[in-house]
């Protein structure tokens, strides 16, 4: 950003044609990022609008459409039967998110504590690039790993596991989002002022006490931001789950409790068995919809954009929340 000094030195020339051309070019480049976001929103909304009964007339679509309420609350996703209930797909995504979070959040947090508090600079110089590799391997390769190596290994422990299953997909997604948790959490821990640590040592605390009792609580907003960002990445992860998780939209078995007429599902021990079954997350359903040739623009094609919009809204909301939380910790210590 230009300082006042630069402003003064450049005001005389800034409207010369050459300067103006450069300025306009650079501005257009930056503005393109806004256009990209607008493009995403416009494409997703207009194409989804063609999908729903409520909005289709607005964009001049007649013929088969789907009800918004059915879409949001329906418990069956079956293109052939014309049932477009997104809940089983959202459930599939949740299964992956919970499973990968169970792996990535503790491991990522432990990694961040180790890198920030314990590792020598030399060790850190080797570990950090090695961790980056975890996020750099193409996700389609992770999907292949899950199918070819992880599922057979898991079938030793769980003999009734399906060939496509939520567990193997969760494991690979968990591995690939570890660096996301660890790098952002580590940044947050590095931002904790050394005075806090020294105060802890001064009170006679051990390194363990300081790490757990001082550094982690002080960096908790940064850690939370990293968790949310990693979960958002897990929601949007596509190829690994498309390959490994399966293509059977399934709702997990849950217990039901009725409270004042409202149905509230709660997880039971049965629920966990979903990890051994073939499921289908939202992104997996999108890829499956595409893998046929569906350029005709029928209802199935438009449902793609409806899922895409759901996905976009979920990840955007999580990214914004994560940004807001992260902004708080930056304010605290800077």
């Amino acid at each position, binding site marked *: 950003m230009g300082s006042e000094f630069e402003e003064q030195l450049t005001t005389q020339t800034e409207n010369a044609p050459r300067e103006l051309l450069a300025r306009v070019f650079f501005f257009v480049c930056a503005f393109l990022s806004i256009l990209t976001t607008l493009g995403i929103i416009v*494409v997703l909304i*207009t194409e989804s609008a063609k999908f729903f009964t409520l909005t289709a007339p607005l964009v001049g679509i007649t013929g088969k459409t789907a009800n918004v309420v059915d879409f949001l609350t329906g418990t069956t996703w079956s293109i052939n039967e014309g049932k477009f209930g997104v809940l089983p797909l959202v459930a599939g995504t949740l299964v992956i998110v919970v499973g990968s979070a169970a792996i990535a959040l503790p491991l990522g947090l432990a990694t961040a504590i180790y890198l920030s508090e314990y590792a020598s600079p030399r060790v850190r110089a080797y570990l950090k690039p090695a*961790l980056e590799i975890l996020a750099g391997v193409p996700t389609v390769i992770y*999907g292949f790993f899950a199918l070819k190596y992880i599922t057979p290994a898991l079938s030793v422990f769980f003999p009734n596991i399906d060939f496509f299953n939520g567990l193997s997909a969760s494991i690979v997604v968990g591995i690939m989002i570890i660096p996301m948790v660890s790098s952002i959490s580590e940044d947050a821990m590095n931002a904790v002022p050394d005075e806090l640590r020294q105060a802890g040592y001064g009170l006679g605390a051990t390194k363990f006490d300081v790490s*757990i009792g001082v550094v982690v609580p002080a960096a908790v907003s940064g850690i939370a931001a990293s968790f949310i960002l990693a979960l958002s990445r897990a929601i949007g992860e596509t190829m690994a789950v498309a390959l490994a998780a399966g293509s059977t939209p399934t709702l997990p078995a849950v217990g039901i409790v009725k409270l004042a007429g409202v149905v509230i599902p709660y997880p039971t021990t049965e629920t966990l068995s979903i990890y051994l079954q073939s499921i289908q997350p939202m992104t997996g359903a999108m*890829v499956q919809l595409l893998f046929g040739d569906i*350029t005709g623009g029928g209802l199935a094609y438009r449902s793609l954009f409806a899922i895409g919009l759901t996905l976009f809204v979920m990840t955007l909301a999580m990214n914004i929340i994560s940004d807001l939380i992260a902004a708080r910790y930056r304010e605290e210590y800077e």
Partner: protein
Amino acid sequence: MATETDRSTTEGFGQVSRTVGTVFRYLLLVATLSGIVALAVLLAYVFYDAVQPDTAAPGWYLVYFLVLVLPMVVVGLYLRRRTERGLTVGGIALGIPVLGVLFGAGVALLFIDIIPPVAWLGYVIAFLIPFGTIVAIERYRSVPFIAKLVIVTAVFVGSMLAVPGAVASAPILPADWLILVLTLGVPVAVLVWRFLGRTFDAPRWNRIGAALTFVVIAGGGAAAPIIGLGRTSGTVLTMTAVVPFCLYAVVSRYTAAIEADTAATVDEQGVETVAADEQYRPDWLGLGFPVVVIGGMFLGAFLVELFGFAGPQSWVDWQFLTSPHRNAAEEAGVYPAIVGSIMLMIIVALVSFPLGVGAAVYLEEYAPDTWFTRIIDVNISNLAGVPSVVYGLLGLGLFVTYAGSQPGTVLVGGLTLALLILPIVIISAREAIRSVPDGFRQASYGMGATRWQTIKNVILPEAFPGILTGTILALGRAIGETAPLLVIGAPQVFDLPTELSARVGALPLQIYVWATAFASPDFFRKALPAGVIVLLVIMLVMNSVAIVLRNRFERNG
């Protein structure tokens, strides 16, 4: 001593159990390593499946151990003991030809299968004409800038429309490889000349070096048939592997000598007491390292042939790299996928590099601190978090549904991937630009430079290595993306894409197709691991280039 009794009563005070802390520390270490180790095990498995090292004869390993590994270790240890940076020099000297051959192979296959050299010549000339116009017109200071702009644009459009066709129908044209020698050899020679000019203060030798470069490239093309290569490949490989290696050899040989000279003069003046040959050992001895390695490889191949030892039955072989997809796993290959990936990357680089750097320059150098700038700022970081499959939907809606393009073409795929990595390019380019010290800007403004002149002459050249690193890393991400390509309608089975409107395939897409539409035990056992290894090697090469660049950049800065 009075404290003696005190100590007995307060036994244990101030003593803290270390068990918890130690256990915690090792738990953290285990947690840190678990992801890395898990991936390493998976990579080892896939490597084992793809290369099948257990199918090779023991004699094969023995021969290569004796002629390749043992000499490498011995020479490596010697270099480490003998000189300060000898092993580093050796590693770089080995890395340059290896990377050069990989890169050159990519370029060569473009000229063999995709772009006819005659058409290439046409476009080069069509670009040279407006470029020459710019150079000529810049001499006339009285012509206003707008007029110059109009003239150059008109010349550009005119020559783009007329020249390629005219060149293609010219009665006499040089042979294909001679076209490459002319169109690529001359710019490379000029680059070498400028590089030498910045490194050595010896204009005459630098000119000779540049001329020699051109002769070597032409000679490489002419001599290629002797070792069984085509003339086109020979020209390109000489340019990408031999020339950089020679350049590095010359530079490291003579900069070492110059440093030694400087040290010796200091020595005579009695300021520095360390002897010159102690301080500046000849690091360039490391240049012998690649000779040992490459010589060992050829000798090994010869001996293995002589004794008839069978090598491993790797699925990653010449046949795999040069065949198209076939329905039988043994015959399937990845050639169209590799070509598709290369073409996609060219488009992605051409689109995302200028746009990303442009946006970064605007945000760092021009943008006023207003709400609008902050919106752009927040927007870019949010775009980086949008799932790649959503970018695919953007590409599908924007280019296919609205603009009416064919689904799944090279152009649509390249543009979609370019939009996908644009935020990453912008963020890394901003960091590179921000790391240019403010003093540089102020010095430039202080000399009366305008903003554009400062950006062009000071900021971009300074930030260039950082920008390049970020762009290569982003391209590495783009080359592994599958979901956007699927969404824009890339086909399951694809041919060699020969033009921008052809339907595209890519390596990760090929892997996905094999793992789904052709999911048979045979494909899972043979073609898939091989495809995974090829994709991983390409990514590894791109990432290591970026990391080496970054390290050099950080050391210099």
